[in-house]
């Protein structure tokens, strides 16, 4: 399992478009990816659950990657967070 944390810098956080992009990106990978904030942790392919995590600017999230090509998935997710959030 791979894991990284990220602090959101974009003003709008994980709102509509970034969440939709994240779901699309996660669905294209064969690893199981989760995003956690505080006590809650949800699959990165679950749009509503992701959005209702309420990830805003300044929040730190933990991303885990398990199974499949973990190296590739890790790189893809890190690139996604850096670019969109």
């Amino acid at each position, binding site marked *: 399992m791979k894991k990284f944390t990220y602090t959101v810098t974009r003003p709008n*956080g994980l709102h509509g478009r970034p969440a*939709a992009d994240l779901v699309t990106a996660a669905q294209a990978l064969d690893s199981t990816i989760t995003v956690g904030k505080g006590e809650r942790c949800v699959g990165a392919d679950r749009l*509503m659950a992701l959005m209702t995590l309420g990830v*805003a600017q300044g929040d730190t999230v933990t991303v885990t990657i398990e199974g499949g090509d973990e190296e590739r998935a890790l790189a893809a997710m890190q690139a996604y967070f850096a670019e969109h959030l």
Partner: protein
Amino acid sequence: MKLAGRPLCPGVALGPIHVLPEAEKPGKNAPKGTPAEELERLELGRQRALDRVNGQQSAALEKLGKEEADIFRLHALMLEDRDLLETVRCAVRAGACAEDSVREAGETFAAAFRALEDPYLRERAADVEEVSRLWREALSGNLGRLELGKPAILCTGEIAPGELIALEREKVLGLVVERMASDSHAAILTRAMALPTVVGLVPRMDWEGAFAALDGETGELYVTPEEKVRDRLMEKAQAQRKIQTELVAFRDRPACTRDGRVVSVCANIAAPEEAALARREGAQGVGLFRTEFLCLNKEQCPGEEEQIALYRRALEAMEGRRVVIRTLDIGGDKCPPWLEAGRGENPALGLRGIRLSLKQPELFRLQLRAILRAAPYGKAALMFPLVSSAQEVRAARALLERCRAELEAEGLPAGEVEVGVMIETPAAALMAGELAKEADFFSIGTNDLTQYTLAMDRQDPELDGMYDPHHPAVLELIRRTVEEGHRHGRRVALCGQLGADRSMTKTLLQMGVDELSVPVGEVLELKAHVSTLDLSE
């Protein structure tokens, strides 16, 4: 049969009526079959709703741009969302009706969004509701309610902005809506689409297919009109078409008086969609982009990114012509629900326009940043409303420069913008010489200028006939503003109702006004009128 509604958008329409079915029956409903059959129906409805959303996405991409299309992409993903699907299916398996299950799950998820702290995410509750509505429409066979076989006058109880955009314009002759507020987004869109519209009439199912005549100027609807009425309206429609054809000649050339003065004729708009129409009508720019619509009917002030997208759309639609964005003119009697500002004893003289912006700089900063960031997409200018001293302009410009420095520090691109001052108080008009040193241009707002000069409320029906924008005192203030502006080499525009008053065009141009900005529908006629004038006479 003659029915009198309220006029919303002018124009005559003649043709068969099509009554749109009401979207839904409220309340608990019995399932239409066994849970297994109901599940199958549910899935079929979902697929139809998905097809629809994907269609909307392509249409929006083509007509409106990527930002708008992204909303529909989000809707498509919501229709695929595992949690939503499982919640709905679970209820259906337990024996509930498919429509009810979709509605209840939609309400639950929307409530979860509403409970969030982040204002952007809270707004997504509306998207969940929209998806739930589409799915239910698909289930009850109403999904195609907006697909028209042949051109018709549409009659409906209500119509959403998204539905208006989805309409094939050439198939909609006119619109009769029972409920539509005249300052709503939907109303702005009907005007932008130049769709003859009457509101306040309750559609009846037995009108379906009947021939009707609609006059969007008077608010009248005639269902199966007498021959006499039909002929009269046909003539009116023909006359309008003829005028329209004659006016089209003025679209692509500048307005020029017979003695050779070239006058800039621009449009006043209140939503980005109107910019595209202004361009088609031959406006040489947008002289006033009111931004109050951003917030008056919203629970939250839109964020920076959302504002950028809106300004960008207007700038791109004008294809390099100047768009003057007026910073928020709220406060006083125009107060959005989220604004914490006292109304004061006398709202027209209270904390509004630039005064409010300077007192609540967070809101103002957000807008200034968004304007600066949208500026590279076209030729942007901004102007401040209700200025009464040079100090206010200096303070606002200082804040603008601070925003620019911040953006630079953040590595975000910011464009160049001209900064204008609205002349709408007698103080500003009398101080025009001083203000000209602080501003790149002036724009005279004659509605407020008249109200403040005469100390008369323009909305007070008791003062009807006394409130007079032709009053010599008002005209003298306009004259001085133009004179002082020109003395300092500043362009002087005029964007109030007086600009569209053709009995005054010659006087205003003789005073030296450089630019007239009028409602979109008046642009062509004003251009034609200017070309008949000789200012040397």
